[in-house]
């Protein structure tokens, strides 16, 4: 989503990708080249191919039509939360958590939701605060918010000091965000991404300043804290579905559909493998290790 909007320089991605593949082929040592195929990892290769095929076919089928995605309460509450912050004259705070870098799927999904939030806040004229623990995530968020404001025809709203790196330290990040929250008093706080031990500290402070909290993460331990402390929580994969639901992007919606197909395949394999296991045929269990 970062690469598909806005002013990208006229650099074709195909030659660049070919250049990378060329370097990848010439750089490995002879020993690495001799062991290029690890036979014991064949199940992973098969799983990657099946997953990729399911998602690619779904993405292909998604062109020109919109797949149904079940509405999620947390997603439907986003506009209400933004409206409330606007009525209060308060900013919106958006956090992707300390636990993830830009390569994590949760961070990518969160930035897609951020794009939607930026467009909506541009329409309302409400500023977004985005303190980050990772300079790369902060850079991506700056791009995302700038493009969101531009799409909302309010580019002048963008303030680079509101979207910034604070520190890589977990507790330093928590202390900084708590300080910003208590001073700027946001009307809505979005905690969407990869969170660790700082999750409850941030959610509690957001509650104390009277903000509506919408949270979502795939960090299983932290989900219990979000469910207790936040108004709405997107559980695990709901975060990824939310990014597709909000963006309406056929690519993401197709990927969500592809993942649903994979879930059905997994359930079917589990049931078949269980029946075979009861018949003392442990082929699946052994294959999956």
């Amino acid at each position, binding site marked *: 989503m970062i690469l598909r909007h806005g002013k990208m*320089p006229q650099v074709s991605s195909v030659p660049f990708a070919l250049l990378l593949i060329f370097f990848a082929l010439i750089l490995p040592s002879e020993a690495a080249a001799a062991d290029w195929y690890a036979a014991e990892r064949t199940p992973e290769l098969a799983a990657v191919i099946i997953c990729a095929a399911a998602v690619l076919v779904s993405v292909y089928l998604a062109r020109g039509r919109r797949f149904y995605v079940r509405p999620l309460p947390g997603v439907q509450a986003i506009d209400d939360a933004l409206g409330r912050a606007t009525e209060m004259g308060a900013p919106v705070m958006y956090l992707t958590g300390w636990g993830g870098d830009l390569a994590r799927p949760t961070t990518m999904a969160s930035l897609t939701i951020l794009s939607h939030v930026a467009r909506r806040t541009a329409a309302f004229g409400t500023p977004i605060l985005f303190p980050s623990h990772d300079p790369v995530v902060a850079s991506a968020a700056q791009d995302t918010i700038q493009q969101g404001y531009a799409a909302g025809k309010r580019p002048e709203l963008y303030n680079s000091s509101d979207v910034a790196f604070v520190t890589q330290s977990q507790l330093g990040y928590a*202390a900084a965000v708590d300080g910003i929250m208590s001073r700027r008093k946001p009307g809505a706080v979005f905690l969407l991404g990869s969170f660790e031990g700082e999750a409850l500290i941030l959610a509690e402070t957001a509650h104390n300043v009277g903000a509506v909290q919408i949270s979502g993460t795939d960090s299983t331990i932290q989900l*219990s*804290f979000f469910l207790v402390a936040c108004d709405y929580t997107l559980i695990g994969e709901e975060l990824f579905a939310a990014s597709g639901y909000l963006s309406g992007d056929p690519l993401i919606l197709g990927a969500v559909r592809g993942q649903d197909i994979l879930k059905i395949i997994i359930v079917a394999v589990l049931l078949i493998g269980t029946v075979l296991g009861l018949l003392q045929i442990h082929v699946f269990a052994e294959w999956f290790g």
Partner: protein
Amino acid sequence: MSDIGIWITALATLAIYSFLYRDNPFYKAAEYLLIGLTVGYSLVISVKTVLWPGLVLPLLGGDTAKIIPLVLGGLMFIRLVPKLGGWSRIPLAVYVGAGAGVSIPAMLKARVLQQMGATMSNVTTISGVIMLVGVITTILYFYFSREQKGLLQPVAKIGTYYMMIFFGATFGYTVMSRVSLLIGRMEFLLGDWLRLIAR
């Protein structure tokens, strides 16, 4: 720890705890101190453990392959020139692509394949059956392509119960670990600092 160190640590601890009352100058001072120290520390660590041994020394030693990360890293700074800012997306794209490429097979193995194998191979016990039902119903809770009606509704409901039991257990477990952290801090304040309890 020296007496001065104990005093500084104790006062910084109290300054941070003062946020429980409200935002105040002591908390602000501790917050800025913590942020400044951690940023400076991580900068030095990055230079000493990554940039110098991983980039500068190999480049000086003639390792031309290191030109690629040097160029990609340099492109990140191009965003400081607004007209050329779009070029900084190239290293971001490489970073995201490489990260996803490395993590997806590993995640598939650890979080999907091995879990499936373990779930299938334990159904001869009661706990194995409970686990199998939990895995299937929880997976189907996250099926988004249709509404939770008909057969899917009770199945997803069972999945919800499984998740709530898990969340309750992890909540209790994690709260206990946080309480132990608090006890550690109290022991420091009352023992090492005020010497009111034996350490």
